[in-house]
């Protein structure tokens, strides 16, 4: 038990107390961010111990190379999915279809660019358009037909890969188009463009939901849908919008993954990535039961997952251990975040302080 009555000074005047309480709020906010950030730092440190060159960056032909760049570059699709997934989860929903949407949008882009004369920019727009359609489909099932999000998005998760296979005719649809490839392979100021694109998407989504009232309304609908309805909020529109945003994020992730290897692999593109995205959101502290969400912390969550992955790659550990190491590290992070798990340690610490 922390002793909160240490200040024996007379009661502080009113303005001071409001400063104190706002400081308290800041600390509380930071505490939320503390554990994901701490976990990321610990994992990066661990990686550095395993591979001393982990943080070193080389520049080859105007392109930055290095493990730390890899984390951001390889993590970009998961980060994008996590951004969309955070909003969906905040409305008490879930979007299992994003992996399949990646496959569809990648297939659309690859097939259009290799079989038509469309400009690559039009192809990008059409690919994102496919993502919007997928999001609308999910959103309509959830918001209009009141189907459980888990089931509604499961449909597209299962059917989506089939659709992608139909589009690519079961092959890996390869293409050659420098403009389109720039998304996944290009660099800007030496930084892989996928990283910059992801950062732009994050900023746009962040401004879009925080500069408009969308963020508040999403949290309101997620925390108490019925009360939000009584308050006159158009919950259907809000729900529809989050699934569309998730679809757009998945489409951009699909473009990155597809242009990165100059081919759309309907079977494997984005496979199981929806689970990584959900995990990233959970690590970031957004509850699956909806309500408050933390966009930036979801991004940290996604980077944590990628750091583990990249760390395993540079470690030289036999691949048979990959999944076990991932599971153990993630479990450790979730334990770190669990107040119940920390409580005995915190108590022991306080006892030590008291006796000291």
């Amino acid at each position, binding site marked *: *038990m922390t002793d*909160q*009555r240490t200040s024996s000074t007379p009661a502080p005047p009113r303005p001071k*107390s*409001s400063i*104190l*309480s*706002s400081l*308290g*709020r800041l600390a509380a906010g930071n505490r939320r961010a503390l554990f994901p950030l701490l976990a990321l730092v610990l994992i990066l440190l661990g990686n550095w111990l395993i591979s001393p060159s982990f943080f070193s960056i080389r520049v080859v032909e105007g392109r930055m190379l290095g493990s730390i760049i890899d984390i951001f570059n390889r993590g970009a699709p998961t980060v994008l999915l996590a951004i969309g997934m955070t909003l969906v989860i905040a409305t008490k929903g879930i979007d299992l279809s994003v992996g399949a949407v990646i496959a569809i949008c990648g297939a659309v882009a690859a097939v259009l660019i290799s079989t038509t004369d469309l400009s690559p920019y039009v192809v990008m727009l059409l690919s994102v358009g496919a993502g919007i359609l997928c999001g609308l489909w999910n959103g309509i099932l959830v918001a209009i037909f009141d189907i459980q999000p888990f089931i509604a998005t499961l449909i597209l998760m299962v059917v989506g890969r089939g659709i992608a296979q139909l589009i690519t005719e079961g092959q890996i649809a390869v293409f050659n188009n420098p403009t389109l490839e720039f998304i996944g392979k290009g660099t800007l100021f030496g930084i892989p463009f996928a990283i910059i694109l992801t950062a732009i998407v994050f900023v746009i989504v962040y401004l879009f939901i925080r*500069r*408009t*009232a*969308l963020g*508040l*309304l999403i*949290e*309101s609908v997620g*925390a*108490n849908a*019925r*009360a*939000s*309805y*009584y*308050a*006159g*909020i*158009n919950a259907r*529109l*809000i729900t529809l919008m989050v699934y569309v945003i998730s679809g757009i994020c998945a489409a951009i992730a699909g473009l990155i993954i597809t242009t990165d290897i100059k081919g759309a692999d309907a079977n494997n593109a984005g496979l199981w990535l929806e689970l990584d995205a959900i995990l990233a959101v959970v690590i970031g502290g957004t509850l699956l039961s909806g*309500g*408050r969400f933390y966009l930036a912390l979801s991004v940290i969550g996604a980077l944590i997952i990628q750091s583990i992955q990249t760390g395993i790659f540079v470690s030289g550990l036999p691949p048979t251990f990959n999944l076990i190491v991932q599971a153990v590290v993630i479990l450790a992070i979730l334990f770190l975040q669990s107040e119940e798990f920390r409580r005995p340690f915190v108590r022991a610490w306080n006892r030590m302080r008291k006796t000291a």
Partner: protein
Amino acid sequence: MRQRVRPFTGRQTGLPYAELVGEKMTVQKNTPLLQTQNLTKRFGSVQALSGVDFNLYPGEVHAVLGENGAGKSTLIKLITGVYRRDAGEILLEGKPIDPQSPHEAQALGISTVYQEINLVPTMSVAENIFLGRQPRRFGFIDMRAANARARALLKTYHLDIDVTRTLSTFSIAVQQIVAIARGVDMSAKILILDEPTASLDAQEVQMLFTVIRALKARGIGILLITHFLDQVYQISDRITVLRNGERVGEHLTAELPKMKLITLMLGRELLSETESSGAERAAVGDAGGAFLRTEGIARRGMLQPIDLSVARGEIVGLAGLLGSGRTETAQLIFGVARSDAGSVQVKGRKVAIGSPRQAVQHGFGMCPEDRKVEGIIADLSVRENIILAMQAKRGWLRALPARKQEEIAQQMIAALHIVTPDSSKPAGELSGGNQQKVILARWLASQPEFLILDEPTRGIDVGAHAEIIHIIKNLCAQGMALLVISSELAEVVDYSHRVVVLRDRQKLTELTGEDISEDNIMRAIAEQ
């Protein structure tokens, strides 16, 4: 009505218990079953409980009363291990205890039944009673034995029901008794009842009281929290009054006059709210024209066709028993349910309202009956809760700037006397009365022309009650049209310019002017 009360002085709290109670004490005076000494708890800058002594004797019903924020919830949460105390002692049968969770408290013999019953509504009654401790046979759950035992157990509560049926199919009263039966069966020396009667009708309350009396006879100590003063006098043996986290008195119920009790709770004299001048009523007429007029709106299985009008600066009361169609009327007007007949006019123009969103666009607002489910958004801050309807009205694209939000929130917090350390506190952490004020603030911020209030004073302590009625009258004076639903007839009579009486989902009559009285309303309801 008015009564002079000796001003209350803090010194009296210091008097030892025996002195206060005198020799007339009837309950056992030996070791208390449960005792708290100097119990203290602080949340940030708020002193929730300071140095509270509390004694519960076997076989007594001990009511803990106080305004919102007086410390009632904190007291039971400390006793049941939800919160850790900062200082003080809890003694169970003279031995200090330190429960770390409600589960541990239960194991020690302290059972709690909350207002929102903590059972699983989708499971059967028997499953609920034995949840987590099912009788087993060969390692499997023996449902037959569980059913038989549940039936036998509920028999002792004079409850003869089909225990295999889903819990949610029974009335709240039955669910309440099932929860009590479960708690007591799991080992209870002490039963804590938190607002057990809040959603029960009169008959159900008596049913519950029969159970409470039976438990009392078995020597169980019962700690009761309620806002219904009449019920306190009906069932309790002793009363502890808390105010601002301190104990201001412990009295035998029989020796504490109602007025004295209210004075203790408020620390001031009650505002005279039950008088209303006929002149005030006469002032409102059809001069302003009706803001809202419904003609025969109805919905099958929900409400018979109803005609209703509300003018600017007028309060129309909806009176009737529980289930008479009061809430249903409000829901049809506000678009929560779509009417399948009739029409609605706003300011003389016919409108179609199919959802609360459309209602809000027409300048409506509604504080719903079920504050927790339909009103407050517990996770969001007080500020966000307050600006929510206004924001919804503006649409998602036009966000209110943070500074403006804070300004409105502070205005409302000040105007409605919302007790909160700051506007960023999650609304769910406020007391019931303050939550109600936050919802009221939400609608006032949206600047409605017409406000529907469904049971605005239910489950709220005396002080907040008076304040809310004061606010209602003020809004009316400022020209708002109001439709108010309340189970408390005295209240309806007090502020209404017109009273629409409902029975069996049908409008019976409309009382105006001098005809408005409790007698007349009851007569209307009783008429064949």
